[in-house]
């Protein structure tokens, strides 16, 4: 299928990408090409009676396996050490839209 510019904008917004106009058009073309290539999946005969695969294929683990009680993996430096903005133990970001700077 062919993607429209509006599709690309909608997707970019969901994915939190801001595309320059040239980049947007290039991505639209690339993605359209890939989707056309990918459309052949429709010919695979998978419409009926084929259950989506499970990642447990080939595994024979006990039903309760995978439920555990772990201790946290310790951090070798404080959580804010790699943070762009960190103060008094908090990660700082600009307020989300709809929130006035002073709270309320």
């Amino acid at each position, binding site marked *: 299928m062919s993607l429209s510019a509006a599709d690309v904008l909608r997707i970019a917004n969901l994915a939190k990408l801001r595309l320059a106009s040239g980049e947007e058009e290039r991505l639209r073309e690339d993605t359209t090409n890939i989707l056309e290539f990918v459309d052949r999946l429709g010919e695979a005969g998978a419409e009926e009676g084929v259950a989506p695969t499970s990642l447990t294929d080939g595994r024979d683990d006990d039903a309760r396996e995978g439920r555990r009680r772990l201790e946290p993996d310790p951090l070798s430096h404080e959580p804010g050490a790699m943070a762009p903005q960190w103060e008094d133990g908090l990660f*700082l970001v600009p307020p989300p839209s709809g929130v006035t700077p002073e709270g309320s």
Partner: protein
Amino acid sequence: MTWEAVIGLEVHVQLRSGRKLFCGDRVVFGDPPNTHVCPVCLGLPGALPVLDRQAVDLALRAALALGCTVPRTSTWARKNYFYPDLPKGYQITQFEHPMGIGGRVDFDSDGGAKSLRIRRIHVEEDAGKSLHARRPGRTGIDLNRAGAPLVEIVTEPDLRSPGDARAFLQSLKRDLAYLDVSDCNMEQGGLRVDANVSVRRAGSAVLEAKVEIKNVNSFSYIEKALTQEIARQIESREAGSAVRAETRVWDDRRRELRTMRSKEESSDYRYFPEPDLPPLAFGPEELAAVRATLPELSRARRRRFVSEFGVSTYAAGVLTRTRAWADYFEALALDVAPGEAANWIMGPISAIVGEGGGSEAAIRVPPHRLAELIALVESAAISRSAGRTVLEAMAAEGVSAPEVVRREGLGQVADRQVLEGWIDTILNEDEGAVARYRAGEEQVLGHFMGRIMTLSAGRAHPTEVRRLLQEKLREG
């Protein structure tokens, strides 16, 4: 024209495992920010979720207790959206295949016995907290709560009044505590409720546009918010205008609902199966084993207390508020008449330990010791008011009633009337001995003394008893 409200609820409950759902971090309320975090709940590159065993155990108890069918496998999904307190950019939840479906809950409201269908119950992780007021122009992010274990319980829209909604929530909260599934601490966000509500003409089956109510943090505010919203919708409909589907949030300060700023982008959460977690599988043995450990829940117990013990409906309600209370009552009622047991618990005991205490009192004054105390009072060995004093000492020090009585001299009963009662009892039991005494066998007096002391559990004032006893025997 009469209108009917159609109400459904979505209840988020924090599981009391004390650990995060997908890592080992503690869930502690009120600690300094970002002190209970690890690679997993910080969403660091390379970290992977591992499902906590105890959270599943608790969620399974909830699902079964709510009468849900638990499928052999349920699956995890990612709900994708960006928010600063959602570290991975997705929430791990259950979507297509939740762990519990199609349950039913019976509860009592002011309007009588009600029944509500449960659509589903699923497990998910909580987000962190955004603190908007701490820094000028900045939002602070605390991830201590990120990854805390929740169950979401979604009801069918079977509720018809705000009062019923409140009654259901109270019953649910009580039962989740009975089940040891959740503390349901609303102040700490351990129980959060969203509601959806619409109104229709009574008897109509038409589905109307639903309004979602969010951000209400107490049961009485939920009742209030629903009442307001239903009135608003009825007013609007009677004025001939339609009700718009929207989300309204509760404003705590103004105690009213307001329309949420709808700058929200279209929410397309792109749910898909979580590839980092195998499906959650339950064998029939596990379900049976958990089912066998489910306690009798509050409503059933309340009803049984009325039918089996003959206590009042009111008393049964009070006694079943917590499981510890109810257990205490039942243990006490083994030795003490139920009415008396109920009075003692609802009176002196609750005065000492406070509302909903129970567990503390149970440690300090176990039921068999309270029974001992009650027996002393019943036998008039000590007065009722002395009984309260003794109980306070028992609760404070963890000692038995006779110990307190002996130590405090409370048992030195010198009251002539009480003593005469005991003496009469003993003398009437053994007229042969009385005759022998009168025939000159004076050592029988010692025998009577011993019997009376036993009867009074050692509390009869010995000198006084001897005097009264001699008096009585002479009179005869």
